[in-house]
């Protein structure tokens, strides 16, 4: 019985996996004993990890076979290097062969690992193509975002390629992190130390309101598990619609309309206000259930 609440935000990658999958169902590919470390970190005298910051393997969730990758945000910010990226790509290639019911990506990453930046950038491009190939084969890819590093840089792009994006409010999703924007453009553009602003611009509730996250859950591993099971129950069939020109034309129009509608918007409060949330200021404090209930009445309007 899994009764103790596990904060997904605070948990390690391995704890998240254990809390997410069926008891004793996880088999790790390339476990730490193999010591697949990054020679590039070693060369710069930076600490290495025996799993290079990502756990990959197979398991069952509610009896259904899945392949999964879990990034460890506490190791180099979950950043993608050559080995780390190749483990995720290998997992996706394996999905093409093993045909699991879904691939789960537990994203917790700032993007490319600068110590091996070129290898990381290429690896992310390879992961993007591999995700698209898995989806084209009819296998859904589900992203979970609730860790301390969120999903940024190239991993923010990968996350948005996924069929489902499950987030907690604590999880963040974007491209350039607030610190990077502040460093380059100044504190007036984005004050990275204003934590509530950071979450109103990148957090799970804003992403859910904009339709980018497909589910919002509380910061609790059991809630993420339930949400994954709900995705599997819905039987998302992979992105066979991806080959549909009309679907992408509609997505194009939706993204354009959003840019027009929120042309001057720089704070999530304005999105919640515009969407018609009864008390926009209170949105950040809502539980996931309360938020989801309020959103349900507004949703169609917000997303286009």
């Amino acid at each position, binding site marked *: 019985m899994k009764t103790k609440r596990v904060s997904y935000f605070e948990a390690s990658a391995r704890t998240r996996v254990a809390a997410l999958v069926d008891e004793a169902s996880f088999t790790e*590919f*390339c476990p730490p004993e*193999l010591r*697949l470390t990054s*020679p*590039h970190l070693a060369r*710069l005298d*930076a600490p290495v990890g025996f799993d290079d910051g990502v756990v990959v393997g197979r398991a069952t969730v509610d009896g259904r076979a899945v392949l999964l990758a879990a990034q460890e945000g506490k190791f180099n910010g979950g950043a993608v290097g*050559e080995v780390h990226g*190749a*483990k995720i*790509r*290998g997992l996706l*290639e*394996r999905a093409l*062969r093993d045909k699991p019911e879904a691939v789960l990506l537990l994203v917790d990453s700032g993007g*490319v690992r*600068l*110590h*091996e930046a*070129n*290898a*990381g950038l*290429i*690896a992310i*491009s390879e992961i*993007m*193509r*591999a995700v*698209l190939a898995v989806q*084209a084969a009819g296998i859904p890819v589900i992203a979970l975002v609730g860790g301390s590093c969120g999903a940024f*840089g*190239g991993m*923010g*792009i990968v996350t*948005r*390629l996924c069929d489902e994006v499950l987030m907690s409010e604590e999880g963040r999703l*974007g*491209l*350039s992190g*607030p610190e990077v*924007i502040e460093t380059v*453009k100044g504190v007036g*553009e984005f004050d990275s130390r204003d934590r509530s602003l950071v979450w109103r611009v*990148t957090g799970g509730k804003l*992403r859910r309101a*904009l339709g980018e996250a497909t589910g919002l859950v509380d910061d609790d591993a059991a809630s993420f598990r339930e949400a994954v099971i709900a995705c599997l129950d819905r039987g998302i069939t992979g992105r066979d619609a*991806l*080959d549909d*020109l009309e679907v*992408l*034309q509609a*997505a194009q129009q939706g*993204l*354009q309309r959003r*840019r027009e509608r*929120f042309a001057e*918007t*720089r*704070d999530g409060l304005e999105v919640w206000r515009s969407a018609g949330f009864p008390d926009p200021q209170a949105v950040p404090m809502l539980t996931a259930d309360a938020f989801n209930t309020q959103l349900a009445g507004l949703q169609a309007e917000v997303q286009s």
Partner: protein
Amino acid sequence: MSDVIVFDRLFGAGHGVEVHGHFVRGRAEVAGRPVAVIGTWDSAAVDGDLALAVSGAILEVVAEDAKRTGTPRPIVFIADTEGQELSRREELLGLNGCFAHVARCVDLARRRGHPILTLIHGRAVSGGFLAFGMLADRVCALPGAQVRVMDLRAMSRVTKIALDRLEGLAKESPVFAPGADNYWRMGAVDELWPEGGADWDERLAGALDAVLSASRTDGRAAVGAERGGRTLAAQVAATVLAA
């Protein structure tokens, strides 16, 4: 080099490729074969509007060719970008999602049979390159093209590793130092065009032929291993497959 000179050298006189701000769009012929040209220009910081201009243009080409008989036209991407636009508004509106949408459009075009070639002119940096240029079947770096995630000075600040140390290591290792040649060694750039060539039209025709005769799957890790610039990626992925 001005856009007129670059496009004349690539596509010959009489092409219909135009630059509007940072956006490149038009039609041209390569060795008598019509191609669609789409891209970014002048070290563009790619924002949502520019990303959607690129994806919209890809969708137009796919839609046009779906209505006619014959083989789908090749798409030639021009990549010249200093990376993604850094702004709070772009983050709020989900620039990452716009980039993912562009990637989906590239993937649709590929699966509908459009050969896809990228020409890097100027700079190909980080997110602006990831969004579409890097996803091509073949990538050619024009003379002087720079490819990178971040310059070494900024990298030194972020990683807290001394600049001279990074500069020293950059000479031995292609994995973090900027340079189209490093990306070639790692398998992500296929052709490095030499300085001073007057033969860009011929090179372009050759590159397009290479796309048409090659596999459409992602072979970059294997190529990187062959060239000795990225020795682990293919091996580690194979280990995961075999586990």
